[in-house]
């Protein structure tokens, strides 16, 4: 009897402890003081910005404070999505957060990491039709608008004009075959056969070359209407990988690997495009600012990435910074005022565009003539405004689909995949499993 009592007590304690750990976080945010409450308050905003960029954003936060004098914003820079998630899950979330991982927002919507903003949008009358429609893929999931875009990244083709002139190439390639032909003309070899300068690095895991940025020019379908991954059923995926492999084989995989291993870092002054080691590269709009800062005498031009559909040439991939109110925000009403300001205030977006050299995300700010200050940057603005510009559809599995495709690309370009079609079908299956696994706990 005594033993049974002890066992029952132990079980009860264990069950209580386990239940305590499974309760999760409270679904409600912080104290709702109402949007009319003008009690002075300091709110915290986490961002990934550091150094000069953080100072530029701080200047905008000072402008926000002038407009809303009772709200002081403390920006904590250098925060990644990983640290944000850990803080939210640890109950120490900031009041507002800027995320640079647009792949992840759909999982933030699905899990409740970011609050659903729809009610706040409706009550404050934010005109969602002024926000670029191509950003919806990464700010909204399953009917929940849980983030707003604040500046975007668009990807285009950067090419070395001196190298083009030397090779007798007069314009940027508009088709993928033209890009291959130009890359071959622009590549030079050392006497021992190793690559001296590469026309284009066709790896799909090199700097900003990846399945998302390059795939935007291949008219890829990511998911079927039933939600299943379409890599096995949409022939464009195989076409893209086939094109890529042919160019890898032309260089020789080992030669290319060895060349890539010796290149400078992407965001350093030794960036191989800026130092002339690579003649054509896919990169984000920020490269304009980096090149101006790190390689003043370097001559280059920008263009949209090639497209398999001539009618869609001029478009590309858009992704970018989002702002959301994390679960556990202590001042969600004040945080919303700041989120709305950052995402929709034209003067704010124009100023940030000029300073950070990212692309604005409302139609009004994109049309503002004051941001068209640089010929190369204007190309990026036009890509953002193009009606065919797309973003990668989000899933509850966050970045997992892209990561699984990248791993597949690494094996494929190394010649380790014997059958492309069955390989892609397997990746699709794997993505479906990962999404199903990630969705399983989000039914509540």
């Amino acid at each position, binding site marked *: 009897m005594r033993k049974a009592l002890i066992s029952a007590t132990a079980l009860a304690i264990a069950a209580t402890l386990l239940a305590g750990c499974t*309760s999760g976080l409270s679904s409600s945010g912080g104290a709702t003081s109402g949007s009319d409450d003008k009690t002075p308050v300091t709110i915290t905003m986490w961002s990934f910005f550091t150094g000069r960029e953080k100072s530029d954003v701080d200047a905008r936060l000072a402008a926000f404070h002038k407009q809303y004098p009772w709200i002081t914003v403390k920006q904590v820079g250098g925060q990644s999505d990983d640290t944000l998630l850990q803080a939210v*899950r640890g109950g120490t979330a900031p009041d507002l957060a800027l995320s640079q991982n647009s792949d992840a927002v759909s999982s933030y919507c699905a899990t409740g990491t970011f609050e659903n903003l729809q009610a706040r949008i409706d009550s404050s009358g934010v005109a969602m039709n002024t926000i670029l429609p191509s950003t919806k893929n990464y700010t909204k999931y399953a009917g929940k608008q849980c983030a707003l875009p604040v500046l975007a990244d668009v990807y285009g083709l950067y090419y070395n004009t001196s190298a083009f002139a030397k090779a007798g190439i007069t314009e940027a390639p508009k088709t993928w075959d033209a890009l291959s032909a130009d890359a071959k003309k622009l590549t030079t070899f050392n006497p021992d056969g190793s690559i001296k300068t590469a026309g284009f690095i066709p790896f799909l895991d090199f700097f900003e070359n*990846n399945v998302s940025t390059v795939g935007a020019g291949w008219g890829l379908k990511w998911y079927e209407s039933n939600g299943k991954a379409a890599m096995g059923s949409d022939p464009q995926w195989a076409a893209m990988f086939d094109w890529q492999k042919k160019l890898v084989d032309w260089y020789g995989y080992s030669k290319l690997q060895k060349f890539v291993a*010796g290149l400078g870092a992407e965001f350093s002054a030794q960036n191989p495009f800026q130092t002339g080691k690579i003649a054509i590269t896919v990169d984000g709009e920020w490269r304009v600012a980096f090149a101006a800062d790190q390689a003043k005498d370097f001559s280059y031009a920008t263009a949209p990435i090639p497209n398999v559909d001539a009618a869609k040439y001029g478009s590309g991939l858009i992704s970018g910074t989002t702002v959301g109110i994390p679960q556990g925000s202590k001042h969600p009403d004040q945080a919303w005022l700041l989120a709305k300001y950052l995402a929709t205030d034209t003067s704010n977006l124009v100023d940030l565009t000029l300073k950070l050299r990212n692309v604005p995300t409302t139609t009004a700010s994109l049309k503002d003539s004051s941001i068209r200050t640089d010929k190369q940057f204007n190309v990026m603005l036009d890509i953002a405004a193009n009606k065919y510009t797309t973003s990668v559809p989000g899933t509850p599995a966050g970045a997992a689909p892209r*990561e699984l495709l990248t791993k597949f690309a690494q094996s494929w370009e190394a010649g380790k995949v014997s059958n492309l079609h069955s390989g892609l079908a397997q990746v699709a299956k*794997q993505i479906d*499993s990962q999404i199903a696994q*990630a969705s399983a706990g*989000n039914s509540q």
Partner: protein
Amino acid sequence: MTSITAEVHGRTVDARARGAARRRRRNRSRLTILAFLSPGLVGLVVFFLYPLAANLYYSFTHFDLMNSAVWAGLANYRFMLNGDRQIGDALVNTLVFCVIAVPVQLLFALGVASVMARVRSGAGIYRTLFYLPTLLPPVAATLAFTFVLNPGTGPVNAILKALGLPQPLWFSDPAYAKSGLLMLTVWGIGNTIVILLAATLEVPVELQEAAQLDGANGTKRFWHVTLPSIAPVLLFSTIIGVIQSLQIFTQPYVVSTIVGNGSGTTADNLGYPQNSMLFFTEVLYQQGFRYFNMGYAAALSMVLFAATLLVTLVLVRATRRQFHGDGG
């Protein structure tokens, strides 16, 4: 008759009293032992048994740390077997690395320890030199190796080129990536070297001398005297080596991040190149701390725990007879 009964009764009472006193003493002694053990027991319950039980429970749930855990039965284990295609690569890589790395590390450590045990002068310098890599943080050591083995700019390939030898892509080539990792872990095996050196120096000199008088040469003395004497320490080092190999994380994580073509995000490169550096713990990290599939990560950690326990038990049982003669 009455007096006999009384005497017997008296003896019984005395015996009972003595028994009760003995029991009291025993109980007091047990309580004292328990009191001394209690800090350790509390630590065991709070920091091992409870987390283990909680982890076991979560392995049967879908849990993202944000919402309450949802009971999922065996779904996570089914996903491990049927849905997660990365786990096969991770399992093979982990086992292959364990099977190769543990013997290589032990042989290297034993060889160095045996040589150092014979060194007469400058022993301290050699011991320091071999132990120094252990003091280096694993991340820093791994970074240094990625630079040294960089196929384009590293000194190793420059030397190989000067000698007219083939220059592997090292951490960029799945055929060589594990070799690079093996070199890195062998380079940092100073702890085991010190333990084996201490054990070797503890082997009774009279045993060595007796064997020498019996005509045993150096190899025979090592095989029949030194090795049996240090066998328990070797077993300890083997078990620690197996556990460390099964749980290897930092070095392949850093290598894949640094070498993976600089494609920006860590997760894209986890296991780079071509999943050859994808180890069990990395899948666990990816699922738990990047995708926040905590339930599945808990299931993975239960499998890792069970595998480690099983290997340890097998090793202990297999070697028990060696140490205790008849298996006692």
